[in-house]
């Protein structure tokens, strides 16, 4: 049986690698909350990724449940936080941005979250003049 020529295999793999590098984005934080975002039809893509800050809202992940319970939590960066801490978070994020007026806050919240949590966050965002928000969602046909 003749030997299989594998000399082009590296090139092939590299192509796949570059493809993945282009279409994906680095995962910035480890998620501590679980969420399924709602589905909508009128969605817009988040442009200017470096001007986006994420706020995650949802119940803690299964492995953290023993420690933190199962009620809704807010995650900023890598830790759980209170709605009042959102303001500091927003300012901090803003400091690290080049175009500070373009700041967008993307709220990734679980669909079963009670509006009270979201409203609290929204109020703080208003007070910190982070007025552009984006309710993260998946596309629905």
């Amino acid at each position, binding site marked *: 049986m003749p030997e299989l020529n*594998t*000399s082009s*295999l*590296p090139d092939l*793999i*590299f192509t*796949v*690698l570059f493809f*993945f*590098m282009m*279409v*994906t*984005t*680095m*995962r910035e934080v480890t998620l501590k909350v679980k969420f399924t*975002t*709602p589905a*909508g*039809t*009128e*969605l*817009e*893509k*988040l442009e200017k*990724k470096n001007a*986006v800050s994420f706020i995650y*809202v949802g119940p803690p992940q299964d492995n953290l449940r023993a420690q933190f319970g199962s009620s809704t939590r807010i995650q900023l960066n890598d830790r759980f936080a209170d709605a009042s801490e959102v303001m500091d978070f927003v300012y901090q994020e803003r400091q690290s941005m080049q175009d500070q007026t373009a700041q*967008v806050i*993307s*709220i990734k*919240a*679980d*669909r*079963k*979250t*009670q*509006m*009270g949590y*979201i*409203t609290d966050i*929204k*109020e703080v*965002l*208003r*007070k910190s*003049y*982070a*007025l*552009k*928000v*984006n*309710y*993260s*969602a*998946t*596309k629905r046909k």
Partner: protein
Amino acid sequence: MAKKKRKVPGLNASSTADISFILLIFFLITTSMDSDSGLARRLPQPPENEEVKQELKIKERNLMEVRLNAAGFLWVKDGIANGYVDISELRERAKTFIKNEQNLSNLPEKHTININLLGPCTLTDKHVISVQTDRGTPYEMYFMVQNELVAAYNELRDEKAKEKFGRLYEGLTDEQKVAIRTYYPQKISEAEPKNYGGN
């Protein structure tokens, strides 16, 4: 000296595949595929003392109230009717309200203003859609209401763009987009949440 043809030994590249495989797997793990998209909204400026008074000044015919109670039920009040509606009817209700085609006296008042590219137009520039939620309202319901309202505006804008420029709103030039946006300004207000409709 005798010229010897020296042979460059071939580089052993058999492990390159393994190396690139490792790189590939590393990227697969550390990155996420989901392209982020969502419903873009603009929050109002932080409240000042005058705002409370201003809000009272909205004429009744110009106001469409959308309320979501803790159980996730939708209650709509405009000039035509008030009562509970299904989420699927909201879009049409909003469109009728915003358009006020027959210039009815119980729907938003119309003014004639001059819009660049469109000329003088009569439109309901004073209308407001007010969304009120309860602290217990499920986020998904709120999101769907927002989605339907934005959809209503988008459909109206598409209709207008088709009629005036023969193209959908997305395909217009920036100048044309501004004209259409002036014709159908998005006016969704979010009042501070109240506690009603149960716990």
